[in-house]
């Protein structure tokens, strides 16, 4: 019912946001703040790792889309790591697969950034 957010620097000027838990209308502001902070500090190439996310709703998707919009304005991008079939299905249904790069592991998401 809660979300844990962990931000870490990776190679190059990329940052990884690890999310663990459930992203819904109650927890998504925390995710939004973490991503917003990174962008405010000038980091526009992000990997958001959803491997440990068990649940995401439209407010969570909205936060991801909002982040992508902002980094794109600076020529950056957001790649996602996602393996949970139910969450993959949600990206599929909503057509967000066409907008996000979605990868099975962090390495692949990272390589696709640079």
């Amino acid at each position, binding site marked *: *019912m809660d979300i844990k957010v962990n931000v870490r620097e990776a190679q190059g000027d990329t940052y990884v946001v690890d999310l663990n838990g*459930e992203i*819904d*209308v*109650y927890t998504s502001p925390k995710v939004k703040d973490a991503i917003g902070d990174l962008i405010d500090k000038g980091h526009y190439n992000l990997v958001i790792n959803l491997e440990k996310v068990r*649940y995401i*709703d*439209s*407010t969570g*998707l*909205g936060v991801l*889309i*909002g982040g*992508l*919009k902002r980094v*794109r304005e600076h020529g950056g991008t957001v790649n996602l790591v996602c393996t949970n*079939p*139910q969450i993959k*299905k*949600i990206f599929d*249904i*909503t*057509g*967000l697969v*066409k*907008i996000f790069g979605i990868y099975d592991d962090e390495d692949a998401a990272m390589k696709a950034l640079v």
Partner: protein
Amino acid sequence: MVELRIPSKAEWVAVARLAVAAVANRLNFSIEDIEDVKLAVAEACTNCIQHAHGSDQIEITCETEPEGLTVRVRDYGRGTRPEAISSRRVDEPRVGGLGVFLIRSLMDSVEYDVHPERGTNLVMIKKVTN
């Protein structure tokens, strides 16, 4: 019939989706079906919280039959115009507007009864497939 009433606040949506998932668990649903129901209920509650101004509670009722689960989500806030309850896919990154689309995609039958003063009454059905 199982009835649940929660305050119209973000922190209680998880209670609604977990309770409805527990109800759904008593039917012959797959895990994927239960996840669908959970998300649809959460989207409906989120909309009550974000759009139904003046309503301080959300009522959720579940009726179970061997063939499926009927979930009703209603608020008593200011409702919207029926046209607003449309749904769209995402072709460009735009924030918002996915909730009703997801509800319609995940449930087998979705009926909105939208009223500007009496609030919004959503009835949705998930059928047991196997």
